[in-house]
């Protein structure tokens, strides 16, 4: 891991009128590091993720990103064109519902190739080869390249969404409940895949989940949120094995044992 953080978050708050989305969140994320944000529904996890990924503007606070040219840029001060360019090159965003992140009416190959075409790739053969390669890496048979995601199962759609995001070799990926709504065996394979990819590509990731097992499997570090604030953070194993806050203890002890 490099000594320079990829993302610097200081005192980020988001208010919806008088209601609190999240407040005074600060942390740093290093290259290759996976951070899990856990907490119950309504604790502000998704609001925080949206603020980090520029989908929402924070009410106060600063999010800075370490650009490829070595400069830190305040995301809120970037132009929309720059933000959108960052979004489709250096970043990825994996939605809980694959239909939100995929184009359901164009083929799997075009879904993966879209980002390449968006950054100026104009060679059909190369785009198709890259798409085929990525489908293989996310364990989708290459002969499904011309099928639409509508014809895919939930797990395949999620894997396709991951391939679509990773094709431009991003450095930072945001994931919002990536395994939500999948059955456990499919979940396990997806987690395996994500863990492998994150490791091989040296990706940094911010993963929002309410599933502590997912957090334990994927993340190095985790933050526990309650009522919009971070109440505990630390190494994943430390937080899960030795929770300090009463709420975290409750959360950990609420896991169903089979």
């Amino acid at each position, binding site marked *: 891991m490099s000594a320079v953080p990829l993302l610097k978050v200081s005192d980020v708050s988001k208010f919806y009128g008088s209601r609190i989305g999240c407040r005074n969140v600060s942390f740093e994320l290093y290259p290759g590091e996976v951070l899990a944000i856990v907490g119950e529904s309504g604790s502000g996890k998704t609001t925080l993720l949206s603020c980090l990924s520029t989908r929402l503007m924070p009410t106060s606070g600063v999010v800075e990103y370490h650009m490829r040219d070595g400069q830190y840029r305040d995301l809120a001060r970037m132009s929309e064109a720059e933000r959108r360019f960052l979004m489709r090159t250096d970043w990825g965003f994996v939605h809980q519902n694959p239909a939100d992140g995929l184009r359901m009416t164009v*083929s799997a*190959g075009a879904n993966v190739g879209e980002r390449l075409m*968006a950054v100026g790739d*104009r*060679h*059909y053969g190369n785009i198709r080869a890259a798409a085929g390669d990525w489908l293989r890496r996310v364990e989708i048979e290459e002969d499904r390249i011309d099928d639409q995601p509508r014809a895919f199962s939930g797990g395949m759609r999620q894997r396709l969404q991951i391939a679509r995001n990773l094709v431009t070799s991003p450095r930072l990926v945001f994931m919002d409940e990536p395994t939500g709504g999948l059955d456990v065996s499919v979940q396990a394979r997806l987690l395996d895949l994500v863990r492998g990819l994150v490791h091989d590509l040296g990706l940094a990731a911010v993963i929002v989940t309410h599933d502590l097992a997912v957090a334990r499997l994927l993340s190095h570090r985790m933050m526990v949120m309650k009522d919009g604030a971070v109440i505990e953070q630390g190494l994943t194993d430390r937080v899960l094995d030795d929770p300090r806050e009463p709420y975290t203890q409750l959360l950990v002890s609420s896991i169903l044992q089979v």
Partner: protein
Amino acid sequence: MNDLANYNFAYLDEQTKRMIRRAILKAIAIPGYQVPFASREMPMPYGWGTGGVQVTASILGPSDVLKVIDQGADDTTNAVSIRAFFQKVANVAVTTRTADATIIQTRHRIPEEKLGEGQTLVYQVPIPEPLRFLEPRETETRKMHALEEYGLMHVKLYEDIARNGHIATTYAYPVKVEGRYVMDPSPTPKFDNPKMHMSEALQLFGAGREKRIYAVPPYTEVVSLDFEDHPFEVQKFDRPCALCGAENVYLDEVVLDDKGGRMFVCSDTDHCEDRRAHGHAGAMLAPAAKESQEAAE
């Protein structure tokens, strides 16, 4: 007194024309950019050329000579009606000869004869937004134009190749204007796309229902989108026009009977008639007509 006396010259009132001319000027200043305008109700249904008619009405002067074509033909319903309309409300000279016209309103074709300086081509446009079928939100497509995010346009072409092995879009083929805006050339066959490039004539596009005007000024670069390994190419016909023998023109297929008989003729009727008047004859030209042509020679 004639009822038409109540109408202003060329049907629209002067304030409306002024508004439309402003939109046209803006469109010319930003080639390929869709300028919103306050489209008026016209005495014809949407989809029949309300946008084109408003543009024509706004630029028409008493000394203009108007030609109206529909799929290349001067004698189809839409063309005849619009021509008659302007004869009535503006009392302008009309013609079917491409070279004589100063304004040509067209539905989905560009005349075969090369247009020159001083001529204006007015297109009727049903859906001005080239990104519409890929991105239904207008707010989003306008943003994509503003930020020059045109990757999605190539996704459509990619899909074509993946399904058909080649780019199967044959009409409304997207173009990039002056290296900036991606534009829908209206549903003209892609055969006509190269004619838009560096055209000497001014090209104006009016979409009445969608309330947009856009333009390609003379001598403007118009490039059809493609892939490096699947370059843009136009339709080719394996036979000449059956009536005038012309090659390298856009042909219409005409079914002759229910036994599979058919012929291919120029879609540009003026071009075809002009060639026949100059003694060119195709394989299926009626013998009587051929004889009279030979006699004339």
